[in-house]
């Protein structure tokens, strides 16, 4: 697989947008059970705004960092909510992690994933086990880094990240929430998957798919 260009990142965001759009209703329904029923709406609004902004960008003339920064700003201002600051921070950190590069190899992409999870955690202050999107993003980042360390290629790294994210998302079903709206539900949150963790899996799967298209 050749290195990821800025054009490749634009494709990646388009792939994420399509994937979220397709799962929008399911995500809002998950949020309806333990939250306020808008997570699918928020995520779709966010990635639509990202793709509109990137469409106005001359991909050839920009570097990966500014693609990620453009995405961050667009997502944040379109969404607000909880997802807005979390994903915007993730995108900004991803951009910073690859600053100066014209294209991204396996290590750079893995570094981006790690930076995204780290940025989200700093923004939201959530630990693993608190029934949030971190329960998908943190294991995904660890898996990507581990796969890189033991020499797997980009496709392999992303595959491991997706697998870890889905396992993490599944695990939120049995958790009591300690962050977000569901945190006030106590035991009533048990038995329902966290919508943000569910959308994280969709996003990571689309990243793998979108970058795979290179």
């Amino acid at each position, binding site marked *: 697989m050749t290195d990821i260009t800025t054009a490749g990142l634009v494709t990646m965001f388009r792939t994420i947008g399509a994937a979220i759009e397709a799962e929008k209703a399911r995500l809002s329904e998950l949020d309806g*059970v333990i939250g306020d029923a808008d997570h699918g709406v*928020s995520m779709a609004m966010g990635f639509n705004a990202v793709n509109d902004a990137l469409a106005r960008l001359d991909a050839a003339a920009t570097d990966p960092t500014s693609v990620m920064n453009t995405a961050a700003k667009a997502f944040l201002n379109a*969404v607000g909510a*909880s997802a807005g600051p979390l994903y915007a921070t993730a995108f900004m950190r991803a951009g910073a992690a690859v600053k100066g590069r014209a294209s991204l190899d396996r290590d750079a992409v893995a570094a981006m994933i790690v930076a995204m999870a780290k940025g989200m955690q700093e923004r*939201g202050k959530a630990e693993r086990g608190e029934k949030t999107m971190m329960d998908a993003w943190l294991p995904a980042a660890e898996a990507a880094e581990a796969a890189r360390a033991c020499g797997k290629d980009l496709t392999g790294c992303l595959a491991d990240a997706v697998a870890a994210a889905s396992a993490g998302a599944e695990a939120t079903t049995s958790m009591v929430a300690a962050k977000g*709206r*569901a*945190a006030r539900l106590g035991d009533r949150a048990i038995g329902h998957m966290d919508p943000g963790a569910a959308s994280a899996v969709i996003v990571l799967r689309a990243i793998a798919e979108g970058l795979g298209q290179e």
Partner: protein
Amino acid sequence: MKTKKLINDPDAVIKEMLEGIMAAHPALLTQVPDHPRAVVARHGPRPGKVGLVIGGGSGHEPTFVGFVGRGLADACAVGNVFASPPPDPILECAKAANGGAGVIFMYGNYGGDVMNFDMAAELAGMEDIRVSTVLTTDDVASAPPERRADRRGVAGNVFIFKAAGAACDKMCSFEDCERAARKANDHTFTMGVALAPCSLPQTLKHNFEIGPEDMEIGMGIHGEPGVAREKLKTADRVADDILDRIFAEMPAKRGDNVAVLVNSLGSTPLMELYILHRRVKQRLDQIGIGIHGSWVGSYCTSLEMTGASITLMLLDAELTELLDHPCDCAMFKVS
């Protein structure tokens, strides 16, 4: 089955609502140029006055945007339906509200709002605007008293914002405005019940399901589950359940006075609200607490949700004066 709404493009409801609000109240409100989600009081911000910036998700009207005006909030950042506004309009509000004496951010205690307002506060700091944040936490159903700081902000917002806005309007010092704001929040207690759900413009689907004979005690104003599902009771029983919770922690003694808010979550009509208020008065009479003033109507809604909440604000001389201080907002006036 989809719900019915009088809207155009579901993705444009906030933009169009704000255009309608500006068209209806041009003498009171304006939008920051190029930042329509930042709504500012025409006669609010003044040099030397501490600015009050409120905000939150839409769908709770008249909360929050309806409380912008002289004597109350100087500016309001408007989010999507049930979603915190992003930092951008919040920052614009801070700039517009700042008269050099700094601004206070007041909003309901929700994780999303905290993240966005905190990011905006950082940005405001970079522009040398002094910012202090006071979260509203009046929903007694959302956490036990010992975790008051974890509670949600709900209908009591209107009393709490009103008191803080009055302190600002009286040109009190930054410290006094902040203290008054925290005190107002500490003295305010709310609990609600929901009988039927609402639906978001983008989904046109009920945001929660509830049985034909059930009610949800302590339902959040975004349809977040509350503390319990029970069979629907009479208005008096519902009022009693709410008041028992509030009386259990409100440090009031005989002879004290309260402000009363009986609020509709959207579809519950005035007839039912006044029947609830009747019981509130009976219960307060029983324990020798007087009513300084009552507000009955739609003050903090969840779109068209069916249900109601009761708020009591325990008054002292300072809070009474702040509550009685005149304010002139598009959707809330005291004269």
